[in-house]
């Protein structure tokens, strides 16, 4: 499994992100800009909540009848002379593709952006073949490749963490002598990649949606590299997660509209293509067409509470609204699938041992759930993960298990709680500070700067209000208040 991007512990990654000010600023800027664009594009469409209902319905329906739709799709691809391979694991998929590359004697491989091929570490496998070179042709993926295979930080904007000077430096290694102007650098990449494209003999693409009733695949891009990948080489291999399927062109069209609006705030991206094996009479397009359908842990979600995660259409909107992603960035998650969707998906694909930290890295603010175009209850699924780890697997997770269980006991027992209410002011006396605070009306009974045990996480960052004396707490006030009311005493 290679969805993991880092061996470092979670907290180390968080610390590194905190020190990467450019990354943090870029993410914040991107989030803010996308917020406006996305909202405008959705408002312009109108009835967004009803569109979400439809999007959710389409995705839930295909997941429910997944084997049937995959069979239909596979049969249609085969009928048109294409080949379909079902891969249980990343290794099976990568090996199958490697064998095709060998059989086709491929020397120059072009790839268009695909998270699934990153997931199966395909580039490395193909580059191990003799006399074989490979080019990521999406501008961002190209930059990452040329920067010594740096890891992506966003599923839609993989190079969000890089600034123009860093990119200029990368391009200089390829003979670029221009300025750091994005347009000039993009023109250079166009020319550089076009020469390679024209010689390519094998094209590898991902797949936004596979169309079951026609055997076509739907790809959505802005640059046009995917379409060149599907036009020029004689052989095309499509790699798709097994859940990326729709019944017909009609549902693909619905989801494309929602995907583009959610991902980049466009009504449709520049290129939405529905494409398959070359038919008789056509001179370009793949004369050999392969589709690899990948499980690689996805089926772990089937039949469980986590099934809705398979509804995902990879728009990245949840990353773009996530306050955690805003601060720790893609690398903070240590998975090629970052953000809220990554925090739900990564443990499903690859287990809690590696990704058990991620479901806890959320304040459960539900911005992800609110924005998801196909209504995945993301924050609820994060709680579900916590439940599995705590209740079922009994993973302590370096958290004070005993204290939390104690909290469960305390908050379910009125007597214990009342004891706490009585003791808290007194109990906190040794901790409280007499130093004046700059904050008015929050620390009316003093404040605490250093709390023990669980409370330390709080006071490492912020001051804690000291509880009032028992006679001054809310319940005491209310009792007095009621008594006065009953006695007919008017209070001022």
């Amino acid at each position, binding site marked *: 499994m290679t969805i993991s991007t880092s061996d470092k512990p979670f907290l180390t990654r968080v610390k590194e992100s905190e020190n990467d000010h450019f990354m943090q600023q870029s993410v914040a800027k991107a989030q803010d800009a996308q917020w406006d664009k996305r909202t405008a594009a959705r408002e312009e469409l109108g009835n967004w909540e009803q569109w979400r209902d439809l999007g959710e319905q389409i995705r839930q329906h295909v997941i429910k009848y997944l084997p049937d739709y995959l069979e239909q799709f596979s049969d249609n691809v085969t009928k048109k002379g294409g080949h379909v391979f079902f891969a249980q694991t990343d290794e099976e998929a990568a090996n199958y593709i490697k064998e095709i590359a060998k059989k086709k004697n491929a020397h120059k491989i072009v790839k268009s952006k695909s998270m699934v091929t990153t997931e199966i570490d395909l580039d490395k496998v193909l580059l191990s073949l003799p006399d074989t070179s490979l080019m990521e042709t999406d501008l961002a993926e190209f930059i990452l490749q040329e920067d010594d295979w740096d890891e992506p930080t966003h599923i839609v904007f993989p190079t969000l963490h890089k600034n123009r000077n860093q990119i200029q430096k990368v391009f200089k290694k390829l003979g670029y002598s221009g300025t750091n102007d994005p347009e000039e650098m993009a023109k250079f990449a166009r020319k550089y990649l076009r020469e390679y494209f024209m010689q390519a003999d094998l094209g590898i693409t991902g797949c936004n949606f596979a169309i079951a009733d026609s055997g076509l695949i739907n790809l959505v891009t802005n640059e046009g590299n995917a*379409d060149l990948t599907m*036009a020029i080489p004689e052989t095309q291999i499509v790699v798709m997660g097994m859940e990326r399927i729709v019944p017909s062109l009609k549902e693909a069209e619905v989801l494309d509209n929602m995907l583009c609006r959610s991902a980049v705030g466009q009504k*449709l991206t*520049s290129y939405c293509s529905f494409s398959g094996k070359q038919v008789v009479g056509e001179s370009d397009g793949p004369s050999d067409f392969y589709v690899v359908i990948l499980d690689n842990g996805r089926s772990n979600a089937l039949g469980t509470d986590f099934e809705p995660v398979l509804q995902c259409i990879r728009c990245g909107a949840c990353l773009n609204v996530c306050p955690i992603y805003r601060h720790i960035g893609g690398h903070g998650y240590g998975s090629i699938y970052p953000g809220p969707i990554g925090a739900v998906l990564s443990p499903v694909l690859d287990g809690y041992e590696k990704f058990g930290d991620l479901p806890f890295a959320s304040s459960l603010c539900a911005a992800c759930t609110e924005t998801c175009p196909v209504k995945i209850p993301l924050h609820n699924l994060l709680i579900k993960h916590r439940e599995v780890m705590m209740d079922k697997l009994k993973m302590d997770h370096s958290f004070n298990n005993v204290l939390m269980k104690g909290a469960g006991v305390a908050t379910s027992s009125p007597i214990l709680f009342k004891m706490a209410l009585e003791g808290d002011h007194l109990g906190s006396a040794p901790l409280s500070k007499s130093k004046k605070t700059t904050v008015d009306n929050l620390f009316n009974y003093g404040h605490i700067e250093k709390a023990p045990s669980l409370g330390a996480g709080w006071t490492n960052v912020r001051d804690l209000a000291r509880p009032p004396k028992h006679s001054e707490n809310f319940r005491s006030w209310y009792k007095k208040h009621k008594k006065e009311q009953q006695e007919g005493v008017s209070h001022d």
Partner: protein
Amino acid sequence: MTNQNKETFLDRIATKSGRARHQLSKHPFIPVNDLPETTLSGKSQDELFEIAKKNSEAVHVTFERTDTTSLASLLNSFLSKKDIQNLILPTTDKWSTYGLSEWEKERSDSAEFWLPESSRKENLEKANSADGAIGFADYLLAESGTITVATTPGQGRGFHFLPTHYLSIIPKSCILSRSRQAMHKYEDAISSGKLVTSNINFITGPSNSGDIEMVLVVGVHGPLDMTYVVVEDL
């Protein structure tokens, strides 16, 4: 062998999900609402034209209107304005419909054609060397400013992506409200056998990217600019 591979895989996921295979015929997809059909419906062709114009221009498209009598001169001015030296044209029987038979004949020496009988390499090299392409679209989608084209032997995939400047001709009667209406047209044409194609492209303006610091760059792998020409009397 492939079959066994498929059966094993599908049986396994069916078991994992706890749901039997082959249920779909009893449970076809019935959409929960008809928004794809009703959104932007009931517009006249004139209204659709205005919506298409606005939305095309919003995605950096040069939007022109003309009729069959003036189409040729509009194409000529496009060629001179973009200073196009190597033009590529499709092989199609549409020229006469658009009143362009003469214009096409005049170009038979100077322009290259995407030829059904040419090899992959020949057609792609021609398109790659072309600094301009003039092609025909099937439909124009008003809502998004999108032209749609199905690949044909005379107008291949690379035709739309390799040249530097691109002009697309669309009859006004082929402006549709949204992508849903185009899907109906294509599904009908394919199922009736009228259209045989491996590829349908929905193209919305020139290629672009925001991959460098989220700065919008127009023109990456595909054409650097796009011109749509709507022919009003067709």
